[in-house]
């Protein structure tokens, strides 16, 4: 068949497909006839194959290639059902993912809480150690922040409103979590750094304030949001370590394939991390900083949140095998 005859007999189909694809792309109202789209698309696929096989001109092949490519993208895209995906994620996939990665989560917890614990205990024995970790100005700043004489605790709060701090916590804390995850791709080193750095920082601040006798304001402040915020960092670190581990020990896959599998799994942890840190920021800005609430109540609430978070990770989304 000569090219001209070929084009003349199929041009109407190509025009129709082009029109439907435009409608779908612009999210216009789609009529009943669009149910024919897969069929029409496959016919045009055949036309492209024929045009190539018969060595029709590059121009025609390019035109058909573009048309088929658009059809392919339209037909094989993943539908985005954001709302139901979020619900399912919270009910099932997130805790399941955390349990699936229990080894790395334990390792990340050990790195973070372990380093915090070691520094905490060391400072109890050698209080001057704090000055080897933080600068004198930082130490002074922390002391002023959690001075029991002050009315509101945490980050020079008197001059600023709660909402300002809310925005600050979101920006700062979630960004740290994201970096702790992304850094993992450098063979795990970035995640290792963020886990240890933050662990040591937490341990030294807690150790120093306890040693100073400023424990009550500090623990009352962090009790509420500690569960969500600290576990979020641990999970972000674990997700990052997973990326690094895939590159170091890819097993039977190539490094690239291993990295992809690891990334698809660990990004689920990161969705959860972002949600947890967001919630932590709400608590930190509007509850933890409220000095009117008795420290005892804050401790109880804080511990309850730890308990709830742990039972969520351990129990949610479990089903009996059928």
């Amino acid at each position, binding site marked *: 068949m*000569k*090219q*001209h005859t070929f*084009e*003349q007999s199929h*041009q109407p189909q*190509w*025009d129709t497909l*082009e029109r439907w694809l435009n409608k779908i*792309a612009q999210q216009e109202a789609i009529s009943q006839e669009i149910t024919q789209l897969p069929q029409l698309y*496959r016919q045009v*696929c055949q036309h*492209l*194959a024929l045009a190539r096989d018969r*060595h029709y*001109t*590059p*121009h025609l092949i*390019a035109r058909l*290639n*573009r048309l*088929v*490519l658009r059809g*392919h*993208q339209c037909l*094989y*895209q*993943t539908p*985005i059902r*954001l709302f139901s*995906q979020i619900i399912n994620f919270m009910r099932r996939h997130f805790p399941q993912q955390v349990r699936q990665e229990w080894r790395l989560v334990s390792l990340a917890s050990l790195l973070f809480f372990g380093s915090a614990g070691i520094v905490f205990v060391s400072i109890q024995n050698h209080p001057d150690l704090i000055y080897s970790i933080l600068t004198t100005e930082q130490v002074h700043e922390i002391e002023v922040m959690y001075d029991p004489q002050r009315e509101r605790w945490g980050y020079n709060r008197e001059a*600023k*409103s709660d*909402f*300002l*701090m*809310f*925005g*600050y916590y*979101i*920006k700062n804390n*979630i*960004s740290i979590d*994201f*970096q702790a995850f*992304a*850094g993992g*791709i*450098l063979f795990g080193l*970035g995640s290792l750094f963020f886990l240890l750095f933050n662990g040591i920082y937490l341990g030294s601040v807690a150790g120093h304030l306890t040693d100073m006798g400023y424990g009550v304001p500090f623990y009352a402040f962090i009790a509420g949001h500690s569960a969500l915020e600290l576990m979020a960092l641990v999970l972000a670190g674990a997700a990052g370590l997973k*990326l690094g581990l895939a590159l170091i020990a890819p097993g039977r896959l190539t490094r*690239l394939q291993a*990295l*992809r599998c690891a*990334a*698809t799994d660990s*990004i*689920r942890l*990161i*969705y959860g991390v972002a949600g947890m840190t967001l919630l932590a920021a709400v608590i930190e800005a509007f509850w933890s900083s409220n000095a009117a609430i008795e420290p005892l109540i804050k401790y109880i609430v804080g511990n309850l949140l730890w308990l709830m978070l742990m039972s969520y990770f351990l129990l949610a989304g479990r089903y009996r095998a059928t």
Partner: protein
Amino acid sequence: MLDTTRSIETPEGIELSLRVAGPVVRALAWSIDMGIRSIVYSLLAVLLSYLGELGYGIFFIAIFGLEWFYPVVFEVYRQGATPGKRALKIKVLHEWGTPVNWSAAMIRNLLRVVDFLPFFYGFGLITMIINQDFKRIGDLAAGTIVVYDDEKIKMVTLPVESARAMPVSLPLEQQLAIINFAERSPQLLPARKLELANLVTTLTNSRDEVSVKTLYQLANGLMGMNNSTNQIAN
């Protein structure tokens, strides 16, 4: 492979070709996006300064949202292209040629911070140069590629001439060369046309303008044009 065309196979068994976008065009797209974000930040800073501390709080959240999620949201909901990418006619796709989903967009954009290391996309650039699809680290992990979004290809008309049958039978490549010559004639300078047509005087039995004209007629004949309709429809 020296060119930047990559082929993907569809479930229909068809091979599609995509043109991968290189570092320069992607850097330009990034600069446009950066510019847009900077303008939004400046506007927000001015507007929100009236709200005092509440405004600062909103400003922090806006910075966080735009820095991390601006590319993600556009890539998922705007056919794989941020405004910068759209301006330069490139877009993000899965390696298998379909639009990116949330996971892939999140992975490639969260890992952007690593591509940015040690300074100004150093790792990203090195990675892009050493792999054949110009993928930065985020693209490798997410399994995505950045390709040119081809515009609708314009209609081509052969020069209007009556069709003429081939005097001799030629191999396929040579037939295609004659058709391509006719198709590309609007882009060729007159002198170049003559020069090319004079290479095949044995086929056309003529020289200069007559030879060009004969080649057009042969091309029309090869395409199967009738004398009445001398135009390839669309």
